[in-house]
């Protein structure tokens, strides 16, 4: 036994040391970008909150100060490390960097910040609902790669049924389609033990092929089956009068309110009900639940079908909540972004919500940027949500552990 314990710093594993270093480098790199790119536009940027109030940020000084702070933080991280505070510092740094970027883009003019935030909330809806569908499935032990196909199929069903019989029927049709595609996932993966990723992909091809096929065969000749007026935003009495937040959060379509509700209900159910306990059990250790008499198979079927319904509403957002029609491949990868949100949010509804908002923000910024003259080619702006997803998955997520039993067929016998 050693007489004096020479250890001053707590022991850290090699992985932790490597991660800490990459955080430090990231901060320094952000700082350098801020200094040389964001800092070369003089002029003031106006962030319009309400018609009467425009918040002005001088782009250049802001960027320069930010650069200094980021490099300092980066150096501090490399030398000592922030320990518990690392994620908080990183998030604040990222947020401030985004503000500086907006200031740079808008310098010499102004843009509606409130509008952009409102867009963020709207555009994150299909991702939130897709993510909740994904969480429900994965928590029960079924991997759902088919979110993309579910969203796409439901969008089609919603558009066609909605054009024929009105938006409410459209939503019901979309939900039915979501449930139907989920049923395929459930039957193939639970009863026929097919690899869940393969079924998921097959459903995606199938949905893409079928919707494109029907769009080409039926909708081009019958455009009356593909036009409807989307739902209008509804202002929540009282709450929508709050400046800024009232517009951003409480003057939205029913889809947004449904998304909030879904997040709330999912969180409460998962952690405070009998159903939630059993669901989490069958996702982590189905055999344990099985030995206690829980009907693992039935519960898995039920949860996958409910998830399909939620995804159905998410798919309906395109025709009924946004554009009033269906176009081939209208979802264009949002289902996979929803999947990334599930992982980023560590399979918790609230976590996925924050991820979805980040992606929604990326899209909203991209929209705004195409209206401002920034000199960035439009293709790079369109890449933004995908690049953000990539960076987030690579930087923040890395080694995350999902429900242990996800992906393995349940062996009762």
């Amino acid at each position: 036994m050693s007489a004096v314990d020479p250890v001053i710093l707590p022991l850290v594993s090699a992985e932790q040391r490597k991660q800490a270093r990459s955080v430090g480098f990231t901060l320094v790199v952000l700082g350098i970008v801020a200094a040389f790119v964001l800092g070369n536009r003089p002029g003031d940027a106006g962030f319009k909150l309400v018609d009467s109030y425009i918040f002005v940020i001088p782009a250049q000084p802001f960027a320069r100060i930010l650069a200094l702070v980021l490099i300092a933080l980066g150096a501090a991280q490399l030398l000592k490390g922030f320990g518990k505070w690392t994620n908080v510092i990183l998030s604040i740094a990222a947020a401030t960097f985004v503000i500086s970027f907006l200031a740079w883009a808008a310098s010499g003019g102004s843009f509606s910040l409130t509008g952009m935030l409102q867009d963020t909330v709207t555009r994150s809806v299909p991702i939130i609902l897709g993510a909740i569908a994904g969480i429900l499935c994965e928590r029960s032990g079924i991997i759902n790669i088919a979110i993309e196909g579910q969203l796409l199929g439901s969008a089609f069903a919603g558009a066609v049924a909605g054009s024929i019989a009105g938006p409410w029927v459209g939503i019901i049709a979309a939900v039915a389609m979501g449930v139907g595609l989920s049923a395929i996932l459930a039957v193939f993966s639970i009863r026929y033990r097919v690899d869940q990723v393969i079924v998921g992909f097959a459903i995606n091809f199938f949905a893409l092929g079928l919707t494109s096929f029907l769009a080409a065969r039926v909708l081009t000749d019958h455009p009356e089956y593909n036009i409807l007026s989307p739902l209008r935003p509804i202002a929540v009495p009282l709450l929508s009068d709050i400046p800024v937040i009232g517009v951003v959060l409480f003057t939205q379509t029913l889809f947004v309110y449904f998304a909030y509700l879904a997040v709330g209900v999912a969180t409460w159910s998962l952690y405070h009900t009998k159903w939630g306990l059993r669901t989490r059990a069958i996702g982590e250790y189905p055999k344990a639940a099985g030995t206690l008499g829980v009907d693992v198979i039935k519960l898995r079927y039920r949860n996958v079908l409910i998830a399909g319904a939620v995804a159905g509403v998410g798919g309906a957002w395109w025709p009924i909540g946004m554009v009033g029609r269906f176009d081939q491949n209208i979802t264009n990868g949002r289902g996979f972004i929803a999947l990334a949100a599930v992982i980023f949010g560590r399979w918790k509804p609230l976590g996925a919500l924050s991820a979805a908002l980040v992606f929604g923000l990326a899209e909203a910024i991209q929209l705004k940027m195409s209206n401002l003259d920034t000199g960035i080619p439009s293709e790079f702006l369109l890449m933004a949500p995908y690049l953000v997803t990539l960076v987030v998955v690579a930087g923040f997520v890395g080694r995350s552990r999902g429900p242990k039993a996800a992906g393995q067929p349940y062996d009762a016998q």
Partner: protein
Amino acid sequence: MQLELRGITKRFPGVIANDNVNLTLKTGEVLCLIGENGAGKSTLMNVLYGMYKADEGQIVLDGAPVVFTSPGDAIAAGIGMVHQHFMLVPVFTVAENVVLGVEPTGRFGSLDIDKAREMVREVSDRYNLNLDPDAIIEDLPVGVQQRVEIVKVLLRDAKVVVFDEPTAVLTPKEIIEFFEIVKTLIAAGRGVVFITHKLKEALNVADRIAVLRRGQVVGEVDPKTATESQIAEMMVGRPVQLIVDKKLQAPGEVVLEVRDLSVVDADGRTMVESVSFSVRAGEVVGIAGVQGNGQTELVDALTGLRHSARGSVALDGVDITGASPRERHAKGIAHVPEDRQRQGLVGGLSVAENLVLTRYHDEEFSHGIVMDWPAAHSVAENLIAEYDIRTPSADIEASTLSGGNQQKVIVARELSRPLRLSIAAQPTRGVDVGSIEYIHSRIIKERDTGTAVLIVSTELDEVMALSDRLLVMYRGKIVADLDPKVTSAMDVGLYMAGSRPASAVNA
């Protein structure tokens, strides 16, 4: 209550797991089912518990035949089972695990967690099991986890409790506590069935012993009159040598020198703390300890599979702390891993491919980027013959071999070349008695040829019999360095549990 199994037969593709088994269980007594791995004990109990459906035969409860279609039915009939691998969700609390399936609910199906806590406390206090309902399972020591399983079973009012290999992961002290619990259960009018392969325990605790071999009941013995060798012979079908022959030998120079080694896992927990020891040529050093006290991480660090946070490892005086597994292998270190299916073999590859798994990059088997399969094949054939690996051909998938033969593949691969240091972790886990004999004799042979041997095992008997020197690990530290010839198993057990024998307190 009297429970009878009549003519139970259960078949799986290619094997008859249970063959016309007849057994009677009564409340108020302890029945022990003993047999080797693969004898059919667990399958039988799974049939009883409703997890499997018997192909033939029936279960008779108090004279009337019953059919269990799921564990729910068995539970309702009063049968409780504590599985060998605990059926506990690691990320849930004790209360959550205990009430799963019989949850107390409030409005809208909400979980009444306070009532659940109360229910756990009530049963735990009644049987003196001392459980904290809010503790998280993965943070609890294994002995406590077992008590959670017992509370689960008692909460559902089990009349017959079946334990599958209950003492496999307990310290000697915990084993004694476990048997006290069994006595309490009997006194409270329950029946206990206890599946094991450990002869000593069966003789200590059982009122009746039934021996299974290859799916059949080969006989029942009375523990008051039976001997260990008698039972072992019934288990295997031939006389078995239980103690390995070992001559005394003077150890040579120091081969492995470990100094102040510390290992931290990915979550920042210190698993191995300032461990120092050495192993000499021609010496077997054993590390005893309950699973989960850092042995796995220590072996990982010694073999290069994990980085150490501090400290050094030297082989023949040369520092190898930063060396990769391949470099260590090249320097003459062999590693027989504790989890043969996860680490030691690639199940989908053939036996021949597995036999060159750690040496394929040698000149002998590969020339630059091309593999020399004919050469590999002939070496494989030789090894199969020399180590008596039972396989129809060298080209079938390794996953089809039995546990014992898979272990022989690994032993053949690792020990068939000149070595300086041999590290074997849990060398006979899940291996049949016949192969155990063989593997023990090979380990001693290695030591006799002058190799330094390090054995890590949770089987106290094994590690005491094989070692020349015995170290004990507890909570990541080496807490004792003993001579197994003069130390009692009881004392070693105390060290394993973190305490000290009275005789050592003053030292």
